[in-house]
């Protein structure tokens, strides 16, 4: 019997041009639940740092009075990191700098909607 993936769209997201890693983790413990990544990506580090950043963003959003965080997008000269959460789970994508940020955001939010 094959287990049903928690994020059916995870493989689609991982095949997007420029995407180097996709993972689903829990905000509570930052342990990877489901992943698809290039061989050189440290998935434990990605889960840990993305979760920490998301939590910190949540604190800042609370102080700023803009409500709960839906998604974050971190842009750097060597790549991009995007994450969105639902029901205590965090879906994280790491991609090349040249990846279209609009497409990446839409694909991430779409994949999150399909969370089983």
């Amino acid at each position, binding site marked *: 019997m094959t287990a049903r993936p928690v994020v059916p769209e995870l493989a689609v997201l991982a095949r997007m041009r420029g995407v180097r890693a996709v993972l689903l983790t829990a905000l509570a413990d930052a342990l990877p639940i489901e992943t698809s990544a290039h061989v050189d990506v440290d998935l434990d580090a990605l889960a840990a*740092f993305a979760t920490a950043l998301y939590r*910190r*963003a949540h*604190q*800042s959003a609370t102080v*700023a009075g*803009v409500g709960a*965080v839906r998604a974050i997008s971190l842009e750097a*000269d060597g790549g991009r990191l995007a994450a969105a959460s639902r029901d205590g789970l965090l879906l994280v994508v790491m991609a090349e700098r040249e990846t279209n940020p609009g497409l990446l955001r839409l694909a991430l939010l779409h994949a999150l909607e399909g969370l089983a």
Partner: protein
Amino acid sequence: MPDDIARLSDDLARDPGGLAWVALADALRRARRLADAERVAVRGLGRHPYLADGHDVLARIAADSGNHTRARDEWEMTLRLDGRHVGAQLGMGWLALAGGDRASGLRWWEEARASAPGDPRIEAAGRQLAIAPAASPVPAPSRARASHELFDEIERGGARLALLVDDEGLVLAGQALAPSGGDRSDALGAELSGLSGDAGRALSQLQLGSWERLLVECESGTLALGPLSGGSRAVALVATGAGTPAGLPRLLLDRARRSAEQWLETL
């Protein structure tokens, strides 16, 4: 010009290790796409850190952005790499003129003329020099803009609030007022310091380079923050309301950073 940019982008894509990025950065600069130009130049210099022309183009981008300190740093680096670089000599002369120092401007121009007699850029700079008054043509502001006014235009452009915070979480400019009217600038500044630290650590650990922006989409608004360029370690934040188009926070953040960089130079 868009054709030039597209062609040079193609050239760079075909040969990422080549030097097309220098011309591409300059074309973007001339098209006033200064953030894109800077990004191309910084990435190119990451691969070719000892290319004098690369530092020269980054200096021109900085000069066009109003960041004369960074422009000077980059032109000085250009001259360390190539003491007879005409672009850098003329750039240093231009900076001297902009600061009201006509005598230094003339010295730099003479050096450039000695380096490359007949270069049309030198003749054009000479004409500028001839009409430059002895006093500063670009006088320094008599006083720095008040810190609470710095982001007025950003707020008129659609931002709910804008803040400039140093690397220790202390507010330098801007204000964050709660709906009740209370001031939460200091609390938000302290939070932003932690958030920018986490962003930097995440990128360092994941080997994604230096950070440019962080966008935080929330239920009732979006936060956009990013570090200033140059030597400053300050962070700018812009918050927009719910329903704002997704691209606007980035645009307003880039404007806020440019304003903040110029403001810090006047202090």
